[in-house]
């Protein structure tokens, strides 16, 4: 066994233990440790990715060398390593972009606690990606929830407390359902490791036993995770939670946390239950329908919103809908498109949040539409970044959003029943996206009326960290948009490794 194969486990462990470590450090040192941890885990994941690509097959890492039914396992394939790498990169950029906001909005004495939460969040995301054990997945889902809640409420305003409370309530209902689903599956199959459950489920599906129980378990898990990742009817907590928390939090929450749950759901579909069984069940159709409704309703709510950050938050609802629509197609192409959209949305949404805060800086820290008029002229880089993000959302070729839309459509074309709903929903949602993003772009490039207060010029070098984050995120977006071929091939190969 190569030494590099220890890296996934080590990276989980590192981020887990650096959390408590941060709680006894000062804010400044905690920040350094946190940056170090994110970079280290990112580099480790990159090594793992390189290793897995070169060997061409996934491997299972047994913790403490206990064999299957007793031990806890980590499974690493191309897709897992790639996702881990991507998540680390985006998280680093989100943290980089929000340094000043964190210093302003979080109490001096609680600075270090923020990094505790971020480290734990990173740990739980990595664990969700790598784990091969359903109950471990549940535990880390809860850790993820708790740390995400911490990220929201650390700003300590009434709004964030309320948002955190609502987030917790929705999220806990979701975890309850997930846990119940896992218990069901355990009761039916008698295993907790994903590969073992899969064997049993395939056996049961062939013999036709316990059909109802399997469907119930699948449904419970899907609904639970859908609730946690803010699929349409369960999205009510999202705009408050993303809209009022501090910048790094909203960027991380929207671009990574919900994606961790979605990745887990994809794993459950493909590795736990097995694709054929999922395909037969009606659960995917339900997800498909709600995904489509979410795409439309999210955009409609975003149009009505008159606050920039909340508008972007609502647009997340729509984008999550896209991903569920891809899952709902229940074909390999659909899931690959969904996974690509996870990347694309992760990069774009982080970009938009950071850019929006940059625009807010240039408008007297307000993100109401009335105040940000002309903000793109006052803060050029943020304006450009917002423009790039908007174009990606609208689906201009060369940006990542176009590619994922194209893949969704390609996955849908030729699908027996779902072709027309998908393509029409894509059309509607693209147009709605264009309406509210282009409206905002026009507004930020319209010179502010005479005598308006609060605006000030912001140069590129005034906040070097944020500028660097913006530039990197724009580049990430362009890379995803211009260089999609190898990435998609990677996703496809990783997806094939799932079996």
């Amino acid at each position, binding site marked *: 066994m190569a030494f590099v194969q220890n890296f996934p486990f080590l990276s989980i462990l590192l981020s887990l233990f650096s959390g408590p470590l941060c709680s006894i450090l000062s804010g400044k040192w905690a920040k350094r440790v946190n940056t170090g941890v994110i970079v280290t885990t990112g580099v480790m994941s990159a090594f793992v990715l390189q290793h897995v690509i070169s060997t061409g097959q996934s491997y299972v890492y047994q913790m403490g060398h206990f064999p299957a039914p007793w031990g806890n396992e980590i499974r690493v394939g191309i897709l897992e390593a790639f996702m881990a790498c991507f998540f680390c990169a985006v998280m680093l950029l989100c943290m980089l972009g929000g340094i000043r906001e964190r210093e302003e909005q979080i109490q001096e004495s609680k600075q270090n606690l923020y990094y505790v939460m971020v480290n734990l969040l990173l740990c739980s995301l990595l664990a969700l990606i790598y784990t091969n054990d359903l109950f471990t997945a549940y535990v880390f889902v809860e850790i993820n929830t708790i740390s995400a809640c911490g990220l929201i409420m650390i700003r300590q305003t009434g709004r964030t407390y309320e948002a955190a409370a609502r987030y917790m309530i929705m999220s806990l209902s979701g975890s309850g359902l997930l846990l119940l689903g896992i218990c069901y599956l355990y009761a039916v199959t008698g295993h907790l490791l994903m590969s073992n459950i899969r064997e049993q489920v395939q056996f049961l599906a062939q013999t036709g036993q316990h059909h109802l129980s399997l469907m119930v378990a699948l449904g419970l898990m899907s609904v639970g995770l859908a609730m946690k990742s803010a699929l349409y009817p369960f999205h009510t907590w999202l705009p408050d939670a993303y809209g009022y928390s501090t910048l790094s939090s909203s960027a991380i929450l929207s671009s990574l946390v919900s994606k961790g749950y979605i990745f887990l759901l994809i794993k459950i579909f493909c590795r736990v239950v097995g694709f054929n069984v999922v395909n037969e069940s009606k659960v995917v159709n339900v997800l498909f329908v709600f995904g489509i409704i979410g795409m439309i309703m999210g955009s409609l709510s975003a149009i009505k919103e008159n606050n920039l950050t909340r508008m972007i938050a609502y647009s997340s609802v729509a984008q999550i809908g896209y991903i569920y629509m891809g899952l709902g197609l229940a074909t390999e192409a659909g899931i690959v498109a969904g996974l690509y959209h996870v990347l694309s949305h992760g990069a774009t949404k982080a970009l938009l949040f950071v850019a929006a805060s940059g625009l807010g800086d240039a408008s007297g820290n307000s993100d109401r539409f009335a105040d940000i008029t002309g903000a793109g002229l006052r803060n050029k880089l943020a304006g450009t970044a917002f423009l790039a993000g908007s174009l990606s959302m609208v689906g201009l070729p060369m940006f990542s959003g176009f590619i994922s839309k194209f893949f969704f459509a390609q996955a849908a074309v030729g699908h027996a029943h779902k072709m027309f709903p998908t393509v029409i929903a894509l059309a509607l949602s693209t147009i709605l996206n264009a309406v509210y993003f282009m409206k905002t772009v026009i507004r930020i490039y319209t010179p502010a009326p005479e005598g308006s207060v609060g605006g000030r010029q912001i140069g590129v070098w005034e906040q070097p960290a944020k500028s660097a984050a913006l530039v990197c995120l724009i580049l990430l977006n362009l890379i995803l948009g*211009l260089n999609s071929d190898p990435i998609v091939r990677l996703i496809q190969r990783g997806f094939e490794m799932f079996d």
Partner: protein
Amino acid sequence: MDAFLLIPIVLPMFFGALLLFFSFREKNTAPGGRRERARLCLYVSAVLGISVALALAAAWSGDRELVLFTLFEGVPVYFHVDALGRLFVTVVSLIWVLSALFAFVYMKHEGKEKRYYGFYLILYGVLVALDFSGNLVTMYLFYELTTLVSMPLVLHNGTREAVMAALKYLFYSMCGAYGGLFSVFFLYRYSDSLNFAPGGTLNQAAAQGHEGILLIAVFAALVGFGAKAGMVPLHAWLPTAHPVAPSPASAVLSGVIVKSGVLAVVRVVFYVAGTDFLQGTWVQYVWMTLALLTVFMGSMLAYREQIFKKRLAYSTVSQVSYIMFGLSLLTPDAFTGALLHVVVHAVVKCGLFLTAGVFVYRFGYTRAEELGGIGKKMPKTMWCYLLLSLTLVGIPPTGGFVSKWYLAEGALQSGTGVFSWLGPVVLLVSALLTAGYLLPIAMKGFFPGSEHLQGLEEPHGIEEPGEGAQAHSSRKALGPELSPAMLVPLVVLAALAVWLGVFPGPVSEYAARIATAVF
């Protein structure tokens, strides 16, 4: 690989962006001094001149092609110069130069010139790229960019009305573009490649059994890209957006930008889907119906409209659908006529909008009934106007006659049942209406009758409240006739319009060659 193709695309974009950068830098938007303006004009004409020369050189020196990079499997960003692209690039370049010349004088009273020229230059690069596009996705990319970059020209004066018009334009174009994208999704699946090839690239074996859905896809592309060409049902943006833009901008919008919709339709129908596939299907008939409906409706609305630029915008709606109708007939003659009409209409409508600009610039006139007696004040302008109008109506020795002749000929030969005679009838009626809404202005302009003569002494209806007084005084200082920079484009355009009718040979032969390649 032929990097030379890239230069006329990137060059104006880069220098335009540079100009924009400087325009955003400067705090006050007050018009600069004379020398500064002269420098600006020099800069713009230098950049534009070089880019146009390079673009034409690139276009007329063989079938160049260039693969920039691969977007995803089998779909690169790919440029390829072919006969159709050459024609369009030439038209675009011509209109662009003339309209820029006009703008040098005109934009003085609109202000924010740097921003205008910045977007103007970028738009030229985008349009050249659109014409050089070698596959559907590249074309889609530059089609969207055309919308995005031309939008600032519409909202130039920044009033609420202009912004709303720009948003409407954006909304319609984006909706339409999505219709196009919709067809790309399907064509990608069922064709050999998305690269343009005369006659289409549809894969018969793969498309077998999916004709229904493919027809819907092509229809979506027609309606979608038709939005930019002002075809019913997505035509409503045109009469809103064109009048609020500054006149040189409406000239290029109406002369060239709407043609990008035509180009997109030609590319989808004749270069990807193929004519055989559409011949005799419901798509063809619906397309013909929509086009004829638009021709008639546009003319009627123009006839009733009193605001001069709005009237011209409705006229664009109607005239571009002549082109659409010609394309929809799917016969070589009609196709030739359509391409001819692209050239004729670009020249004529650009000229007409520029004359409208003259009226606004010199007198602040925007309504048709205010124009009585204007021929006495500026006879040269009015003669140009008359020639251009006659061309648009299609009176024999002008370009409009030739193109309409081909269209009618094509319709009669097309064998599309009722349409083969209904088409020419509608075209004729619409031509009469065109005469009815354009010629009275010329008549009133030259022979106003007694009651108008007094009103002429003092100009009224000034459009820019802030700069009104200043503009007013500058008008008096200008003297009775136009400055050459404004007059030259008009004269050139009018001469071209007539020349196209007297010597239609080269252009019509060129168009006919494209037609034979396509069918």
